[in-house]
């Protein structure tokens, strides 16, 4: 059993199958079901971990992109100076590097923003509501420190908010969430490996007499190991396939993404990502193959 070419050869033999090699090991009922069940449960969990990772990744990217490309300037000034200061700020923005467009929100727009809190009948012109200027950035964006200095010199009532202050922790949280998702997938894979190793070791121990007979009549280790490897690989593949299918269905049945739901309803797959879960049963089968092979080699080496 050499690595590399050996594995390929094994995989081919595994897929082609050898009915006879399969039959020399007696069928095992209950433990086989357990292997299938655990593989299925793990695959189900892996689908969610994958969906979580991908959603967190999308979220981090979206927050990073959209918010990084915009900034807001608040003009906090007495009503009579507000218009003048707004125009002064806009003039400064026109000559600032990295600004694509800048415009002051109209009274109607500001009213719409405040409506959820104060109701639609608010008379904005009677209140010292700050004027908002929306800045859309381009290229590498604006230099917030320089802009703040210029604004403070000419427009005393202007406050620049480049969104970075509250964007950074959100992006960091999303990144961390994505990392946890991938970590979960790795842990799930390791758990599958441990489970298959235990099950295969138990099967090898239970079939010690069968293995002794096979060795006596001249069976090579590979031949004996293959019967076990094939069994556990196929069981894990079948269990994981069912688990993945159920997991994908469950994700598909989640309420679709909307602005109201925010992050939670964004949990799911988008576009080509729906194809990614197909990898889960294949990976699980690969893990089972390697784990059974290692367990079988360990056991067989101890026999004559």
């Amino acid at each position, binding site marked *: 059993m050499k690595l590399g070419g050996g594995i390929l050869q094994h995989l081919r033999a595994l897929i082609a199958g050898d009915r006879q090699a399969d039959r020399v090991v007696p069928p095992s009922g209950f433990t086989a079901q357990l292997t299938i069940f655990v593989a299925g449960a793990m695959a189900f969990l892996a689908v969610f971990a994958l969906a979580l990772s991908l959603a967190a990744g999308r979220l981090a990217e979206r927050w990073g992109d959209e918010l990084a490309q915009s900034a807001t300037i608040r003009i906090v000034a007495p009503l009579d100076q507000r218009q003048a200061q707004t125009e002064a700020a806009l003039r400064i923005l026109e000559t600032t590097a990295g600004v694509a467009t800048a415009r002051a929100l109209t009274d109607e727009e500001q009213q719409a923003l405040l409506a959820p809190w104060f109701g639609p009948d608010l008379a904005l012109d009677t209140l010292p509501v700050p004027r908002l200027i929306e800045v859309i950035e381009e290229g590498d964006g604006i230099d917030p420190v320089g802009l703040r200095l210029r604004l403070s010199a000419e427009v005393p009532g202007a406050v620049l908010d480049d969104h970075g202050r509250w964007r950074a922790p959100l992006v960091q949280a999303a990144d961390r969430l994505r990392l946890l998702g991938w970590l979960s997938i790795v842990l799930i894979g390791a758990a599958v490996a441990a489970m298959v190793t235990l099950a295969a070791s138990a099967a090898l121990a239970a079939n010690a007499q069968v293995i002794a007979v096979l060795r006596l*009549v*001249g*069976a090579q280790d590979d031949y004996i190991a293959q019967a076990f490897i094939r069994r556990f690989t196929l069981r894990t593949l079948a269990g994981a396939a069912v688990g993945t299918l159920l997991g994908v269905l469950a994700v598909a049945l989640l309420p679709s993404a909307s602005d109201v739901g925010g992050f939670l309803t964004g949990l799911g797959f988008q576009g080509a990502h729906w194809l990614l879960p197909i990898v889960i049963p294949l990976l699980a089968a690969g893990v089972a193959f390697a784990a059974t092979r290692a367990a079988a080699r360990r056991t067989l080496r101890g026999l004559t």
Partner: protein
Amino acid sequence: MIELENVAYSYGGGELLSDISLKLAPGSFHFLTGPSGAGKTTLLKLCYGALLPTAGYVRLFDADVRGLGRDDIAAVRRRVGVVHQDVQFLDHLSVSENVSLPLMVSGRQDDAAGNDLGELLSWVGLTNRADAMPPELSGGERQRAAVARAVIMSPDVVLADEPTGNIDWEMSQRLLRLLIELNKMGKTVLIATHDLSLIRATKAHVQARVLRIANRRIQLAGADL
């Protein structure tokens, strides 16, 4: 075929066998005798690579057994048929499948030998039991099935460890005749037994040499048998 040179074997705590030299020539017929616990089974195991000598050299088909890998040992066992006293089968396969197991594991299922399965089963008198499961067999039937399994690969050597231990006199005579026939076909045969009357009965039919293990060493027993 099989050659032991100054072989010693110890299970730890004193040697069971010391300074054993033995050569099984092609076509020879040997008995191995000695009291229980003298090391007959151990000696046989040394002859098919189930044990490695703690001292000396064992050569199986001209290869030092210490230099053989696990797959080489498997290849040796395809050329050495072994019959144990308490023979073990795969209990979930039928007698005919168990007998053809050596062909199955060596990928020679389709060989001519596979077609001779029926002939082989009738030779050992198990034609009617071909589809039975091993646990349903009597002691004598098990031993005969073991002989059939040991020879289906047409091995060069047949090693039998107390093959008549569990069966009555008539059945052991029958089993012995099978082994004598094999020897006449040119196979090297080594039978470990403590049953001297069996040895006497055999000597009438075949030129057999008797080796006796005593005091950890092997001696050629003389005409006293």
